[in-house]
């Protein structure tokens, strides 16, 4: 394997080309370091600054031009941008990274003096009966279709779950001509007085954004049903109806051809956890987050994290945290450089943290105790909540034993969809946020890559 593995070196590797990684790479390269930026996707930008395909940009315009400009600056600064490159493993505190070319499967090894993980987040799903039916999707998928591809996810869409993210998704759907049957919000974040909540006033721009979305929804006659939740989805080969538990306790059924359900985001922490960095439960008590200082330094010397993988705080916080981590790495690797004043960045980071805390308070997660036994929790292996509860109650009384006994979390998504639920159903301690161990390969690899490193047919 070693002789087919392409070797390369850089002062710093940045893993993830989203807002945190891009901002960090720019600061590092302008500071005179050699930087390699690795991203699994075939374009830079991450989820927020996702790139619309060239042909669609020509027709529909640039998507989030700030991202285009940021990516251009990063490329111009001399960063070695390796898109289509999956980081599937690491050792030596992150100073050695194992990669695979997404197209060919060709293996690579990158050696660095410091590494920044900016691996972002993915959506948090909570299972309910029928959630594996085709046509039941995440809000992020609906957003991607609407913004990147200009395709409505359905003609009669139900959006549900909790979180501020549901609002821009709803507006994007309206823009491509979908009809929104209902926006089903579990909590009560929107009410008179929302605009006067103290913490939010420190971020008037963010607040204005939410108000603008709500106004658009009202103009289109979209009902925002607060205190309501999805009970079950129905359909034969794809979703055709959804049961909604309403605030007054009654249940109503809506016809739909696309049901989008999401409960915020889960940080993608596999890489720092694989490298053994110290962790602590996140504010929701459902995830383990890397413990970091104000600059994103972890307990592992030379390993830094920034952006949503260090705790969900959104795009603006990711950019600021990425810059702060980059400055810390610069101080470490180029101590001779003159000191840079960072008080403005630090102030902004703290303000954005407060806004994230406010969002956590406004959109609490529901309890997993309500998940019916017959609900499939692990989509890949088809394991139900009842099977997991039973395994946990009959001696396999921790997360790892339950995984071994039921196969929950052992499928190709590696527990990214169900891990937090299996942990909540099987974990020994409520709120202790156990999680599946991170192991190499941390993302699925083509078999040919692991066997020979040869080109995948």
């Amino acid at each position, binding site marked *: 394997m070693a002789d087919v593995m392409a070797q390369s070196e850089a002062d710093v590797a940045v893993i993830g080309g989203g807002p945190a990684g891009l901002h960090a790479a720019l600061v590092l390269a302008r500071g005179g370091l050699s930087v390699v930026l690795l991203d*699994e*996707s*075939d374009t830079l930008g991450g*989820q927020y600054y996702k790139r619309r*395909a*060239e*042909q*669609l*940009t*020509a*027709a*529909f*315009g*640039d998507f989030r*031009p700030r991202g285009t400009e940021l990516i251009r600056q990063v490329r111009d600064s001399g960063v070695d941008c390796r898109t289509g490159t999956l980081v599937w493993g690491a050792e030596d505190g992150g100073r050695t990274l194992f990669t695979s070319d997404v197209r060919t499967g060709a293996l690579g090894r990158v050696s660095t003096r410091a590494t920044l993980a900016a691996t972002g987040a*993915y*959506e948090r799903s909570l299972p309910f009966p029928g959630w*594996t*039916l*085709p*046509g*039941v*999707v*995440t809000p*992020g*998928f*609906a957003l*991607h*279709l609407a913004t*990147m*591809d*200009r*395709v409505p*996810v359905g003609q009669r869409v139900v959006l549900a779950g909790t979180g501020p993210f549901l609002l821009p998704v709803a507006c994007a759907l309206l823009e491509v001509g979908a009809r929104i049957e209902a926006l089903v919000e579990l909590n009560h974040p929107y009410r008179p007085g929302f605009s006067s909540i103290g913490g939010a006033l420190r971020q008037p721009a963010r607040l204005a954004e939410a108000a603008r979305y709500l106004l658009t929804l009202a103009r289109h006659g979209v009902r925002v049903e607060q205190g309501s939740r999805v009970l079950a989805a129905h359909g034969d*080969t*794809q979703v055709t109806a959804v049961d909604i538990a309403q605030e007054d306790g009654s249940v109503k059924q809506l016809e739909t051809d696309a049901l989008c359900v999401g409960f915020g985001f889960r940080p993608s922490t596999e890489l720092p956890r694989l490298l053994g960095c110290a962790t602590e439960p996140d504010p929701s008590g459902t995830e383990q987050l890397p413990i970091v200082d104000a600059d994103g330094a972890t307990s592992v010397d030379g390993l830094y994290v920034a952006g949503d993988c260090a705790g969900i705080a959104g795009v603006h916080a990711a950019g600021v945290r990425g810059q702060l981590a980059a400055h810390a790495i610069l101080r470490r690797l180029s101590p001779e450089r003159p000191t840079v004043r960072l008080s403005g960045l630090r102030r902004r980071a703290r303000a954005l943290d407060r806004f994230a805390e406010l969002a956590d308070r406004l959109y609490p997660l529901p309890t997993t105790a309500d998940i019916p036994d017959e609900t499939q929790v692990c*989509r*890949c*292996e*088809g394991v139900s909540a009842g099977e997991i509860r039973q395994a946990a109650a009959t001696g396999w009384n921790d997360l790892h034993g339950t995984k071994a006994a039921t196969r929950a979390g052992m499928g*190709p*998504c590696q527990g*990214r*969809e169900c891990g937090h639920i299996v942990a909540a159903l099987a974990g020994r301690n409520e709120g202790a946020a156990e999680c599946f161990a991170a192991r190499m390969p941390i993302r*699925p690899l083509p078999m040919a890559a692991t066997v020979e490193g040869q080109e*995948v*047919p």
Partner: protein
Amino acid sequence: MSTNSLPQTVTVTIDGTPGQAWAGQSVTAALVAAGIWPLRRNPVNGQLRGPFCGMGVCLECEVTINGRPGTRSCTAHVTDGMDIRTHTEPLPTAAHG
């Protein structure tokens, strides 16, 4: 940025049937636009599955593209003459008991 007319359409073949899609669109978008939601069977319980996360995490949207099986349709982009095959036929036998 000013916008022009609609993007260039190309021909793709979905399960043997030719159709039109925009060049550069994600393959999942072409499938959804064509009204095709079930893409595969879960290998354990045989249930129909379709695209779910749209960002390469869940692997529910795998199809065969130009003869390459197990390709995530959410991260693949439409090109002219692309051959897309879904796998919704019932499983021969259940993989697990």
